[in-house]
């Protein structure tokens, strides 16, 4: 079985890179053919992942009922450091993989207007896809890091070469931010690696982490286990699943570093690395610049997929590996999310550049993701009821997918109009509804998805995240709820300035010809998906909920086991009566 999965997942990941290699041999002047080829490759990858979602795909089928990793394979890569070529899928990564292949395909279709260095563009574009898919599939932390960096370079060039007037500034800014995050991540990876020890895990845990292959017979497993135990030195590992087991079931990462447990620092470093990508305030300013300068298809990928890597990292790595740090920093993470939501919405309200506005809306919408992942309500009120957290984390995951549909849609819609009139000044639009009714209708629909209108995809994620917050903290909940007003304000005001009104106020009004078939073929699927996901969210929850619930249950279980040693979270709650208060009052009296 493992060899089947090896072939399947490796094909998914490396097919784009292979395509890039083939592209290198294309004659220079055949630009149209290159674009078709690249589109073909992305479509093929999408098809491959789509087949996995189908119920009758045999070995390839992604089984939604399984909560654990599936399609797992592990092959030795750098044995001296115990690094493996180790990949797998679960309900958290699979929807994101599907989203990636889908949005990449649409973005490639949106790349037709690119005329400069087409060959290089297509090659970088495909390598980028390989990098992103690799990150989502990798289960070895080192592999994860490698793919993380692989994804960085093509993006740098795609912004820096094919971007707008300030492209170099934007590209460097993007590069440095992400690199900085990467460096933090590397430090954390090494910290975790050098405190890990597989010998601390039981045989069952090692099997669950695929350190010992579950396909082996009972006897072989026992032999492998004995072999691991026989070592005199600690057995270090980069295996993410094993690190999760170590984090949740042992005190491997609790060593003291500068007065805090090691996992506290690791969590913080990883979190910084990931929220740069999300991005959360105050590490977000690379995003508007990158978006404004990037060409439309790259903006689509950036908003639709790359931002999700941050959320994925938090959900896959930060919390499961460092649960205690996650518990202690729960308020920090949630506050980060809420601040981003509010801040992004306010900033969006003040923008004059259409693309910048959409970029800030991403900051605001991705705040929901961070918040939903972080609402550690499992122990609020001393009652172990993780239901609200499940709702929050599922909401956050849904929000990632929903934002991955709505946001590329919004950027594409901005791109369509930019291509015609070559400006993005919000004060110089108006009246587009009369000139391009089909385009305007689709655009308004997609923007409403961003606004979180019921019946469209944005609503489901936002509402589930929002509803989950009350159990965690009342103040944050009220602030979260208030964002709906700001979101409505900036989206409606934008629609009014761009699409409504009697006439177009900017230059090149005569270029406002209706949408082409190619443009329609990109916008329509996004629009239809936005509706489908909004009306029938189970189509996404079906795949993700079992795994997300498992993650939450694991963490809640950890909290329950360690309840005695944990500070009471309810004590942090400003609305709950603080247990220390009477003592303080007495001290003051004396």
């Amino acid at each position: 079985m493992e060899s089947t999965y090896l072939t399947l997942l490796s094909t998914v990941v490396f097919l784009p890179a292979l395509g890039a290699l083939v592209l290198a041999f294309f004659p220079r002047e055949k630009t149209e053919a290159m674009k078709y080829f690249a589109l073909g490759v992305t479509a093929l990858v999408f098809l491959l992942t789509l087949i996995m979602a189908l119920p009758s795909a045999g070995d390839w089928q992604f089984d939604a009922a399984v909560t654990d990793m599936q399609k797992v394979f592990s092959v030795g890569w750098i044995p001296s450091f115990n690094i493996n070529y180790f990949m797998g899928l679960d309900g958290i990564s699979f929807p994101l993989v599907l989203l990636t292949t889908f949005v990449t395909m649409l973005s490639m279709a949106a790349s037709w207007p690119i005329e400069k260095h087409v060959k290089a563009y297509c090659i970088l574009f495909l390598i980028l896809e390989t990098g992103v898919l690799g990150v989502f599939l990798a289960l070895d932390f080192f592999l994860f890091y490698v793919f993380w960096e692989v994804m960085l370079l093509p993006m740098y060039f795609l912004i820096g070469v094919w971007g707008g007037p300030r492209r170099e500034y934007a590209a460097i800014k993007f590069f440095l931010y992400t690199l900085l995050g990467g460096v933090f991540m590397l430090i954390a990876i090494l910290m975790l690696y050098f405190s890990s020890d597989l010998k601390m895990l039981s045989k069952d845990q090692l099997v669950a982490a695929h350190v010992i292959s579950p396909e082996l017979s009972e006897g072989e497993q026992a032999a492998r286990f004995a072999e691991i135990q026989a070592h005199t030195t600690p057995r270090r590992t980069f295996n993410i699943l094993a690190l999760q087991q170590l984090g949740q079931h042992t005190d491997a990462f609790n060593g003291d570093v500068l007065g805090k447990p090691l996992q506290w620092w690791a969590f913080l470093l990883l979190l910084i690395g990931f929220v740069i990508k999300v991005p959360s305030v105050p590490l977000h300013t690379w995003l508007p610049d990158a978006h404004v300068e990037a060409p439309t298809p790259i903006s689509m990928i950036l908003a639709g997929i790359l931002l999700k890597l941050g959320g994925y990292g938090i959900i896959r790595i930060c919390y499961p590996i460092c649960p205690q740090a996650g518990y202690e920093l729960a308020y920090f993470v949630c506050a980060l999310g809420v601040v981003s939501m509010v801040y992004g919405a306010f900033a969006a309200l003040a923008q004059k550049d259409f693309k910048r506005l959409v970029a800030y809306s991403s900051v605001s919408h991705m705040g929901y993701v961070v918040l939903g992942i972080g609402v550690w309500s499992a122990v609020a009120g001393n009652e172990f009821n993780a239901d609200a957290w499940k709702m929050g984390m599922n909401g956050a995951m849904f929000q990632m997918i929903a934002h991955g549909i709505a946001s590329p849609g919004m950027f594409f819609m901005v791109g369509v109009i930019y291509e015609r009139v070559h400006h993005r000044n919000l004060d110089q639009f108006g009246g587009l509804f009369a000139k391009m009714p089909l385009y305007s209708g689709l655009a308004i629909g997609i923007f409403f998805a961003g606004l979180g209108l019921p019946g469209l995809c944005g609503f489901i994620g936002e509402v589930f995240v929002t509803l989950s917050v009350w159990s965690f903290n009342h103040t944050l909940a009220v602030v979260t709820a208030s964002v709906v007003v700001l979101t409505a304000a900036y989206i409606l005001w934008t629609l009014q300035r761009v699409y409504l009104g009697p006439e177009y106020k900017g230059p090149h009004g005569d270029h406002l010809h209706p949408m082409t078939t190619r443009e329609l073929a990109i916008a329509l699927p996004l629009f239809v998906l936005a509706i489908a996901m909004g009306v029938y969210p189970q189509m996404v929850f079906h795949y993700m909920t079992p795994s997300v619930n498992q993650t939450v249950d694991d963490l809640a279980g950890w909290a329950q086991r360690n309840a005695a040693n944990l500070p009471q979270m309810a004590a942090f709650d400003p609305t709950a009566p603080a247990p220390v208060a009477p003592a303080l009052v007495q001290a003051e009296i004396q």
Partner: protein
Amino acid sequence: MDPVTTLPVLLGIAWLVPLASFTLILLFGPRMGKHGQGAGVLATAAIGTSAILSLIALFFVWVPAYDWAPEHHAAHAEHGAADHHDTGHGDAGHDDAHEKDAHGADEHKAEEHKTADEHHEWRKPYVAGEWYTLGQFGKLRIGISYYIDSLTVTMFAMITFIATMIHFYANGYMHDELHEITDHEVTLSNGHHLHRPGRFHRFFQYLSLFCFSMLGIVIAGNIAMVFVFWELVGICSYFLIGFYIERKSASNAANKAFIVNRVGDFGMIIGLMILIATLGTFSFGDIDTDGDGTVEPGIFSLVRTEANNHALVVPDGMVRAAAASEIAAGVEPSAEQIAKWRAETGPGGIGRTAYWLLIVAGLGIFCGCVGKSAQFPLHVWLPDAMEGPTPVSALVHSATMVAAGVYLVGRFYPVFTPETLLVIAIIGCITLFIAATIAIVAVDIKRVLAYSTVSQLGYMMLALGVGGWSAGMFHLITHAFFKSLLFMCSGSVIHAVHTNDMTKMGGLRHKMPFTAYTMLAGCLAIMGAGIPFMIGLSGYYSKDAILAQALSFKASNPQWGFLFYVAAAGAAITAFYMFRLWFMTFAGKPRDHHAYDHAHESPKIMYYPLIVLAVLAVVVAWPFWPVSIVALLEQARPEGFHETVNGVLVSNLTHPAEHISHEPNFHNQATWVATFVGLSGLGLAIVFYGLSLLNPAEVARQFKPVYTFLWNKWYFDELYDYLFVKPTLFVANRVAEFDKVVIDGIIDSLAMLTRMVARLDDLSDRYLVDGFVNGLAAWTYATGSKLRSAETGRIRQYVMFIVVGTVAMFVLISLYIS
């Protein structure tokens, strides 16, 4: 027909037909007949179908299946015979299935339930169930479900019927949109008026979606689903109000409507959060969602438990939430412990905190209603919403959108504590007064009606807030008939004279008699005209009921007596401004001859619906029909509101049971008061506008400050602009600046710093490091060149140097060793 299986199907189809119409028009609208005319036919047919299905559901399914008590719960022993085994409770039978379903798991409770039933036998009939799930996480579940009681069925019939009338009317009114249109209100930059293609089909597309969303609110079986359709109604009204997208005023009004509504939704979300966090369910009724045979109690059953005889009780979940810090980790608190906590209602007690949670949850939901039903302080959007085409106003301001808020208060009534109800009453009272006063001076015919709507909605809220559940819902239904009539009449006038300004009208009854006299019927209905104790128009009955309940509330709570006086004063003002409107429009001499000369009666498709509605506005509330509205509503009365209830936090707060207000001492007094204030308002209008005995302009001059204040609508728009809009934009700009200046400033200066360090590094490399290396090299070179003089090129000399050197070395070494 078995209502349990039939009603969800009938009403479900009635609900979905407009959605189908919307989808079809969206896809094929422009190609439907000539210029999209078919869209109007399709939408009308769709809503007509819904109306027929709803009426069937009402008269042929609901009415035969359930008997009802004509006045209050005296005859409630008679109850639904239908079998409700899959819908929680629905009848009072001690049948085994019910016992097993609801309480089989808990013997103790089941016993309590039996004793409770002996006290209180009547069970409100309803049908509840789920269609499909949106998401389920652990026990938390949110789905698309239904809750059908007689209120649902009545609202369905009312909404679909009025909407059908409005659709017919709109086919005539929107006729212009079938052709190329010149919009005289929009001037382009080249000085011409805007020409645009007609958008007939789009109007009906929105109208269909609107009906679908509204019916969705009414049929919704849980509060989250209400919220879903609540938002959809909001966005439909956004499209409809902003129908003339080219007009800045229209798109502004649309934005305002949606954003102000979202402010209300903000409160509603908080309410939802509290409910899901503490109760773990959104469902109204008791449904067996997971199909395991046990019925999960809905919100209503949790708040008004059978064990407590359906009186308000703070649910366990809220008590536990309030006692969070008391509960030891992992220990399940016992029922006795929870009861003990619940009883701690003194200051600082857990029970009090829990009670507060219930109040805040209720107020949160009410916030949404404040937005949707345009109550103070969120009433500002409704008058601006007049920018939409008139049929929209009729739909938005009568049967649907604004009714949604009042409907939800009525639906969610069991969860409101007496304190919450008091807030609702006060908000309603303030609203009805403010709006009525503004309506006195407005001259835009639609705006007068808009403010009148706000004022009437205030009445309904007031009624609900003082315990008059059926009075409030009754007024909601009668108001829907006469207000849609009034709006459509005003539309007919506007259609004829092409202006909204009443100062340019006058004498129009000669030109358009149908419109004039149907509107007169509407004015009489809203004024509540009738022969005391004999018969009256629809408003007569519902307004009397409200005043009687307010009077009864005043008797129990003298300190809140002003609620009654304001309501009575409001009734007088209502009569005054409505007849002011009628006289200014239809009576007297024409003020603008150009407009008058072109005026004409509207086509049949427009005035036939007016006649139908006028007849209904007169007769719909008559109590002597075999199926009277009051009796139907009484059947849906929330459990627990048959008795007088008392507040906990506010002392001396008593909500008298509604049947008390039917007793002669309240009822007669209320009738006389209503008649008197109505006539005095009418009299004043006749004095000023009918007979022109007094000159209104003169009065306005004399009371200039008051007049200006009212003319500027109490300066709410200016106030909000100053308080909210400007600060928000200010903060937004500062945030954007913060990004640019501070964050990017730090980042960019870090980058600069790095470059400076790099340059320093470069300099030091060049001058220090390289300087040293180069210096060393230079010194070596210089020494070398100096030594060059020793290089003579003669072999003998070199050999001599070597020999001397070697000898010297040996000498030195030998010396050193020894």
